[in-house]
């Protein structure tokens, strides 16, 4: 499991320099900056079509420093990582260089799921990071498999999405990989600790990070951290790790096993324009959904206690 990290544990060395092409208030900038600090130099990152491609900038000019990057078409990021890893093994460099696939929710839960499942099944030695801004943000906020229930997007413009988001970490858990973790842009220490841990483990590691998106979700650019924290504190986005089958709630989510400790979901939903048309019934459905996902977590906790 990830070690506890304090602020002064995080290296000062920067890999993502100021002045990138992300929107102000972007959750991904925070995630990427922190993740790269944990990964350090000697890292090759492969990136599919996504906001992260935009962050990496135009030909010849980039704000990303000291790591190598290979862009790849939308559906192919996990296969790309498989190729990098195979080449590193052939060169005898797989112990010295970390291979990372960094993709958005569309590239992970939708178009990229086949490649990811294949790479995980083959026990490919790499970290797969999914930053989840819950829609196709780079193309203009279209609905993805990871868009939450009731959310207005440009392809669900009137009624909002009629289904809940796909539980991708659960799908990866079913692949029996050594490490699955969730995190959130509002918790940089958590992100740092989990990437650090993932780097130490051999095999396929999957980290799914919720990434609040001011233009896509409809909130002020100063509120990214606030929204991210509310996602966790309301119990909507539980932070946890599963290492070799052992489930552990991360600190910010630990006390939320007690439903009374969870903030009302209305606090999270009401401050985002994408949820502006939610009916009372839909909010009730959210409460049921959150309770249900915590029942699942409880069942995991109990199992591990007995073990």
């Amino acid at each position, binding site marked *: 499991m990830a070690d506890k990290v304090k602020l002064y544990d995080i290296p000062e060395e920067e890999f993502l320099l100021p002045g990138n092409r992300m929107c102000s208030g972007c959750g991904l900038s925070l995630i990427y900056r922190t993740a790269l600090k944990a990964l350090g*130099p*000697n890292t*090759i990152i*492969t990136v599919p079509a996504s906001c992260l*491609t*935009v962050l*990496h*900038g*135009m*030909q*010849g*000019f*980039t704000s*990303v*420093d*000291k*790591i*190598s*990057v*290979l*862009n*790849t*078409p939308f*559906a*192919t990021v*996990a*296969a*790309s*990582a*498989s*190729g*990098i890893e*195979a*080449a*590193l*093994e*052939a*060169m005898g*460099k797989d112990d*010295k*260089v970390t291979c990372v696939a960094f993709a958005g929710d569309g590239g992970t839960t939708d178009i990229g799921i*086949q*490649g990811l*499942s*294949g790479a995980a*099944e*083959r026990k490919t030695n790499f970290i797969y990071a999914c930053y989840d801004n819950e829609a196709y943000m780079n193309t203009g906020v279209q609905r993805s498999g990871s868009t939450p229930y009731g959310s207005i997007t440009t392809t669900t413009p009137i009624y909002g999405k009629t289904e809940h988001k796909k539980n991708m970490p659960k799908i990866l858990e079913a692949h029996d990989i050594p490490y699955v973790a969730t995190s959130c842009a509002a918790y940089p220490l958590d992100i740092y600790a989990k990437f650090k841990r993932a780097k130490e483990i051999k095999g396929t590691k999957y980290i799914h990070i919720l990434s609040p998106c001011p233009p896509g979700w409809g909130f002020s650019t100063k509120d990214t951290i606030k929204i991210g924290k509310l996602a966790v504190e309301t119990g909507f986005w539980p932070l946890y790790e599963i290492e070799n089958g052992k489930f552990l709630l991360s600190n910010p989510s630990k006390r939320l096993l007690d439903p009374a400790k969870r903030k009302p979901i209305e606090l999270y939903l009401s401050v985002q324009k994408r949820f502006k048309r939610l009916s009372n019934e839909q909010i009730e459905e959210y409460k049921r959904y959150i309770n249900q996902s915590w029942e699942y977590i409880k069942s995991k906790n109990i199992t591990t206690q007995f073990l």
Partner: protein
Amino acid sequence: MTSVEEYQIMTGNHAAANACKGARVQVVAAYPITPQSPVVEKISFFIENGELNARMVRVESEQSALTACVAASATGVRVYTATSSHGLLLMYEILCWAAGNRLPIVMNIAMRSVGAPWSVWTDHQDAFTVRDTGWIQMFCEDNQEIYDTNLQAYRIAEDPSVYVPTFVNYDGYILSHTSMLVKLEPQKKIDEFLPPLKHHLNLGDMNIVKGVCPVTTPHIVKREEGTAPGYYEFRYSLQRSIEHSINKVKEVHDLFAEKFGRSYGNGIYKTYRAEDAEMYIFAVGSVASESRLVIDKLREKGIKIGLISLKLFRPFPTKYLRELFKDAKLIVVFDRDIGYGYEGILCYELKSALYQSKNRPFIKGYIVGLGGRDIITSDLIEGVYRAINLGKKNEYSEQTEFIGLKLDELDFLQKEVK
């Protein structure tokens, strides 16, 4: 002098696998599809048996197969893949990506028809369909040629003046599953011919960090730090390299011939009884092989006809063909493929190449053998005679002609088509 012992009997697929072993490829990623599968089975055997020190990525689709090859190649190693038909088309996006990244990947296409309806049998539709993706493309006529062309392909693709991925194509079943004598060369001799890859991209070298294939703009970007090319310049440079690669193809072929004693025409096309020919058959792969019999039969009748079997299809050797056909009166093109709504692809490529010639021979194209339909020598001969008559009258038909159709045995279809 070569003794019989130096030869082995093997299929085209196994000849390809042996070339892979000879080339010491380091990463192979492939997905099974008929009729390509035995290539990858054989390579898997070589790897597990310890005969080939390579990593095999047993991917879950062709799109992933070529992506893994692209990424491994960009990381700095020699890679190989093979596919057919639908597998090739599932790779289409990544074919463009590989060429745009200037990666010296070598791929075999065991050529097969494309559905619907399903057909696992040979034609050249799959290979011709991907001609505009920015790869060098070569065709083979026998199993030795597959082995030899694969070895040449690595040397061509990896040349610093080229850095373009390369297809080596051969007919499904007709070569892929047919056993012939193949001479396998000693490893030492291959190593002398094909030195280890020196890659322009080498992501695995962490001393120099790189960003590969980021976003470009329609225009060049000028900043204090420097000037970055736009998409247009990237693609221009790809086209130039492919155009120039024809010299390298020829040079590598000649070097190979010198070292191993086997040559394939001039490396660009092969000729058969063409020295004094006034008319020609123009074809690739299995159709060219079959046409050799046609030439023999027509020569017996006193017709001065020769065969041009095109080996290098991309870059299209326009200059060579203009020179070759400068006195030709008639060319019959047999296409085992079709540009739907127009005509056979090889036929219109040739017509286009000869448009600027001083001598513009009469060119008659036929479609033959789609989906593995047998190509009968007598049918081809009849086609040549018909072309000769049309040529005399200079009569072009707007309708594409198919040889070997059996409409007369299918009453209902005959009515509908007419």
